[in-house]
């Protein structure tokens, strides 16, 4: 991946949104917390 990013940034090609996300994520706990929040129950649910 590093090689891909380096090459594509060198030729001026824009990263896809997914690739940008990969570049941004650096903390494992934050990634887990973020995905867990997406799956969690909504507080405002009325069931």
């Amino acid at each position, binding site marked *: *991946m590093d090689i891909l990013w380096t090459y594509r940034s060198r030729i001026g090609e824009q990263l896809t949104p*997914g690739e940008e*996300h990969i570049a941004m994520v650096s903390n494992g*706990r934050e*990634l*887990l917390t973020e995905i867990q929040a*997406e*799956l*969690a129950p909504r507080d405002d649910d009325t069931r």
Partner: protein
Amino acid sequence: MTTRDDDNRLVPLIAVGAAPRTVFTVLAEEERLIVRSDWRSLLHLAARSEQPAVRHYFSGLAAGEELALARLAALTEALGLTGSPDDYRPRPDCQAYPHYFAWLALNAEPTEVAVAMTANFAAWGRYCAAIAKAMRAHYGFADAACGFFDLFAQPLPDDDAVAAVQAGIDDKTLNPARARRYAVLFQSYELQFWNSID
């Protein structure tokens, strides 16, 4: 439409004693197949993992499946299930989860599977805690029969999971977009399991 953990229709019924007792027979029969499958999937993921932290994570979970299988035996005994798991005709909706897990074990980057599994543990733990409590309060099961659900009701320390995920981030084998997709599918297949039992 995005699914959420609270889309589970069965567990709230069990929690108040409104589900028929026969659901425990289905749960036990399906889990006898699921635990065996997941145990092997976890061992396969451990074997495929390059990073020691990831291998440690999956092999630790595999040991938990061995314990779960032993505890499940107490439930099947309490329910009077004496036949082989092979005598049972499984429900496809119940087996979608372990089948998908086996696909991931074969095809997915292990660190991405670690994200997807860990993200779903909280919900699974909540479901198991609610069931274990209801089995005693509403269905008259003895402690031994509740042991399978007690086991998963205990929140796991997430240090090993975080270390595995971090290893994947650090060596850039982990693609968060794929991990997220696996997590969402895992959740959907799990809800499919619960919502197909009545």
